C-alpha cells in the first residue's frame, strides 16, 4: 500500500516562528503536493513538485515555501507563521500527472 506520512499530527507555534512540515512517501512517486484545508473552503493547493528540486506554485503560495531535495520527501515551510495560517495541512503524492493522489493523515497547525 502507498504510504504518505507527515511528521506531526498536531503542532502549535507562535506568530513569527519559522515552521517546517515534513512529508515522506514510500512509493517512488514523481509528484508531491501540499494543500491546506479550511472549513467551507475545501482543499486549496499551496505548492506542488513534479521532480526533485522542482516546484510549482499552486493557488495560494503566499507566505509559504517548499523544498524537495529527495524524491521521497517534500517539505512545506512557513517563513514567519501568522494566525491566518492556522489550518489543516495535507500532503499528497501521485505517480504520474493526471493520476489519483494519495494523501497523508494531515497536520493540524495552530498559530497563536
Amino acid at each position, binding site marked *: 500500500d502507498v504510504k504518505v506520512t507527515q511528521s506531526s499530527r498536531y503542532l502549535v507555534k507562535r506568530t513569527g516562528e519559522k515552521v517546517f512540515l515534513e512529508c515522506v512517501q514510500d512509493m517512488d512517486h514523481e*509528484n508531491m503536493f501540499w494543500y491546506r484545508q479550511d472549513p467551507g473552503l*475545501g*482543499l486549496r*493547493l499551496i505548492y506542488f513538485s513534479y521532480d526533485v528540486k522542482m516546484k510549482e506554485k499552486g493557488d495560494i503560495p503566499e507566505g509559504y515555501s517548499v523544498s524537495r531535495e529527495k524524491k521521497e520527501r517534500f517539505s512545506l515551510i512557513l517563513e514567519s507563521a501568522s494566525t491566518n495560517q492556522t489550518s489543516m495541512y495535507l500532503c499528497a503524492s501521485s505517480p504520474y500527472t493526471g493520476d489519483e493522489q*494519495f*494523501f497523508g493523515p494531515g497536520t493540524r497547525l495552530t498559530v497563536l
Partner: protein
Amino acid sequence: GESVGLHLPTLSVQEGDNSIINCAYSNSASDYFIWYKQESGKGPQFIIDIRSNMDKRQGQRVTVLLNKTVKHLSLQIAATQPGDSAVYFCAHHPPVYTDKLIFGTGTRLQVFP
C-alpha cells in the same frame, strides 16, 4: 474559473438505505474525476474514479455516474453503513492543469441507525 461544486453540504441517511452525493463541475473539457472519502481526523482516501469516456463505473457498494451534458457527477453508496459516515469530496483534473486536482468543498454524510 475552475470550480467544482456540491449541491448539499450535509446528507443524512438511514442505515441500509442508498446514498447519493452530487457534484457539479464547470469545465466541460475535464477528463478525469475522482471521489474521495475523508473520515474525521484523517486524510482523504480514494474511493473511485472515472474518465470522461465513461458514463458509469462501479466499485464495491459504490457507483459513480458522469453526465457530461449537464456537467454533473454523482456518487451512489448502496446499503449505507455507519462506517460510511464521513465527508465526501469530488475532484477533477482540468486538462490544462494536468498536475492539479480541483476539489469541491465536500458533503458530510451522516448515517443513522
